[in-house]
């Protein structure tokens, strides 16, 4: 009975979309080993073979989307000359709606 609500876009569709994305990821993750944890360890292992860094200085951020999720791994790597320097490794993971697993492609950009 609220006239104004007819003109206002409902928030329910936004809620529905958020839930769909979230639950798709949560169902995918159920019963599987922690993909994020595995990725982190493996990435750090690979990088540590080439440079040394402080594991505490690793920052990981993630943004899960409907078709594309972004995983950003930010590591401070000291330069040879002991100046502050940092390297960033970005990876882009695409998730299938079907539980077929993740395809991943990695790019790295060194700053």
């Amino acid at each position, binding site marked *: 009975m609220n006239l104004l609500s007819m003109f206002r876009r409902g928030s329910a569709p936004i809620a529905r979309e958020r839930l769909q994305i979230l639950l798709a990821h949560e169902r995918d993750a159920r019963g599987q*080993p*922690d993909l994020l*944890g*595995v990725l*982190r*360890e*493996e990435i750090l*292992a690979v990088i540590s073979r080439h440079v040394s860094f402080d594991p505490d200085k690793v920052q990981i951020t993630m943004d899960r989307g409907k078709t594309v999720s972004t995983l950003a791994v930010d590591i401070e790597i000291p330069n040879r000359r002991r100046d502050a320097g940092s390297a960033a490794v970005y990876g882009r993971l695409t998730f299938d709606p079907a539980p077929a697993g993740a395809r991943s492609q990695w790019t790295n950009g060194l700053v």
Partner: protein
Amino acid sequence: MSSLICQRQSLTFRARSYMAFVFAPQPPIADWLADLDATLERSKGFFAGHPVALDLSAARLSPPAIAQLVDALAARGVRVLGIEGIEPADAGKLPVLRGGRGIQDVELPEPAGANPASKKQEAASLLIDNPVRSGQSVVFIEGDVTVLGSVGSGAEIIAGGSIHIYGTLRGLAMAGAAGNARARIFCHRFEGELLAIGAHYKTADEIEESLRRGPAQAWLDGNTLKISAMN
């Protein structure tokens, strides 16, 4: 390879003391059970929910007899917390209690209608300077309890003496818990769930609606629990 570092949880042990009634049956057990039945007849369910310890030092029962007694008590709504005065091997499934401190002799009301011989109450009294919250239980067998505040729904006050509530009683009040028939309950505003003096009790259902939301007192008249408005 991922690794999860699990932290070992450390266990903390705490000790707490609880108040329990003590049954010390004297042989012959059948007669003692009959006496108990007569008491319970007048106040059904009195011991329900309250821990009862069984002192069998005078009874000298065999292990099967002990088990039978525990079952007989359970059938009467009496849940035994533990047993003292026996060999640990004879206790069966129940824990053996040791080192209990007597608080006061509790006289079960005499079955034959004779006046209960209550011991003189000591002058001890407990003052509670804040509301008693739902789920809290105050037990003070040594004397009177006074609450400066309300007693919440789902809270209990159990006193050997009288109970004085300068606030609203919404929970349970049991006065004269050690057998003092002269104990009374007073409250500024009665909205309670249960009132009891000694082994005599009334639930909210059995109390007149007109007495609610006003000042009230409860006392024992012979074997009847009476409640009246105070003005």
